[in-house]
């Protein structure tokens, strides 16, 4: 599941050009998405790569983030590795800031 979350975050960062708003918004979103991606990748077991997961068809960066949050929400937090709560908190913070 975290593999798919990381894949969505990677896609969100690449798709940042589709984000409405100023250059500063785009830059801040992309940097936060990059930091989130690293956070998510650190939670993956050794040897697990996100390249094995098909790239999502969704192009809207905010929808991609929401998709990642929805995926995590489907699992009890205590079943996920330590550090997932920090990822969820930062993810929700980013979604909240960019939701019109």
């Amino acid at each position: 599941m975290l593999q798919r979350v990381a894949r969505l975050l990677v896609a969100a960062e690449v798709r940042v050009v589709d984000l409405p708003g100023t250059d500063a918004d785009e830059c801040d979103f992309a940097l936060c998405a990059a930091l989130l991606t690293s956070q998510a990748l650190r939670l993956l077991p050794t040897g697990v790569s996100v390249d094995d997961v098909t790239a999502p068809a969704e192009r809207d960066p905010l929808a991609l983030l929401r998709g990642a949050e929805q995926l995590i929400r489907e699992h009890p937090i205590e079943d996920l590795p330590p550090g997932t709560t920090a990822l969820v908190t930062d993810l929700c913070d980013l979604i909240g800031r960019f939701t019109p």
Partner: protein
Amino acid sequence: MSGRDHRSVGELLLDADHTARDVLMDAGDLDAAAMLRTWGEAVQTAAELWAALPTAPSAAPPSQRSAPVDAMGQVAAMTAALTRGIRRGPWPGPGPTDPRLQAIADSFARAAALINQHGPVGPSSDPAVRADADAARTRIIHTLYLAVHGVRLAVLAHARPLQDAIASRGKNTAAGSLAVARSVLPRLDAVEQVAGAYVARTYPATLAGEHRKAPRGSRVVDALAAWDVHAHRAIAAHPTAGHLRLAARTQELILGHAAVILSAAARTGAVDPYQYATRLEQPLDGARAAWAVTARSWAQFAAHAARPDATALTTAAAEVRAALREITIDASTTATPAVIASRSDLSATARTLATVLAASTDLAHLVRDVTLDPAVTFPARAVNAAAVAASATPCGGTVPGSGEAAHVAIKDLTTNREIPLTALVRTQETHRAQRLVAATGAAADAGAWLPSPTLPDPPQEQTIRTLRARPVQLVSARAAGRGCER
């Protein structure tokens, strides 16, 4: 190194709140017995801190009185009864305490000691003081709310296998422990509900009254310096696509915030507004845009073999972002020049930003060196995707000479092996990096008039003689130029 605690009351409360969040982050590794042994102390120190906080004078109208104190009183009374009960029981018994709940208790105790060191505070008629005290109360209960949830999770996790053992084998070697856990759970639940009701009523609205210290002037200086070191180290030692894109994104962000700060400095007279508008504004934006183009390009590479970036680099990037936003962002929009000026010494920050422009050029050279180095490798799929994109013309054809054949060996693509850039991709990336070097160099040259990042220029001999004759404050010739008349 001194072991003395220099944290303020506000910082201690914030640390306690963060520690309580940490408890929930590691919900799977909690030790129920240790937490139950420590929970009582955490609540007791919270109650002592609560009692030390200033209240509204009794003469004040009800609308101006502080939040009711019943929540803390209820939580303290319920917890005291709970701990008295379990002290007599077979479990948890004596043993180690929980380090995080202990840290919370220590923070509360230290905060109470700080408030009490000059004698009892008593009622205060100052609305700002009372608002700050109400915010502190909210922080205390919020911390306990998170922590008690953690204790409940730990006790639940402790009880579950014991219950399963009874269900499967019909016997339990730790029946006493299970009985205590079963009796403790509803009582912890009650504490959580009392705390939760208070939090729902006050959080986060009451925190608006929290006294906020002015941003530490050196934070942004320290953050920019640390970022510069880590970015250079990461790209020189591990020039991965991820590091290149994170460095470029952060440089774009830094120059964007630099423009906001320098614009505020120009409007408030901290730097020469004419020089800023006519010389620096455009090249600065050009450098920012060049970093943005670079970031987008390396982000495509990074997406094809996503790996976590070095922790030191991500931490430095997050800190530099936070330090700059602390100055330039007000709620969710860009702060006004007056607000920015009130938050930082704009002359000093402008001096730091002069260094940033020079460092930006140096980093751009480092990026260009990476594109020229045949020993640096990238994931095959990323190189292939870049080669396909580079060989396509705007009208859908292919660049003459690039051919239809695969750009990268199939076996490399299959395993996504690390390979050097193809000639076409190298040419494209080098051109992009050359443009970046030119744009950042132009911005650094255009900012040459900014105040020196070191000491002000030595005054001329004539000025020295004048200064010796007149005991006035020393200002450099540059700082006293246009826009600094006030």
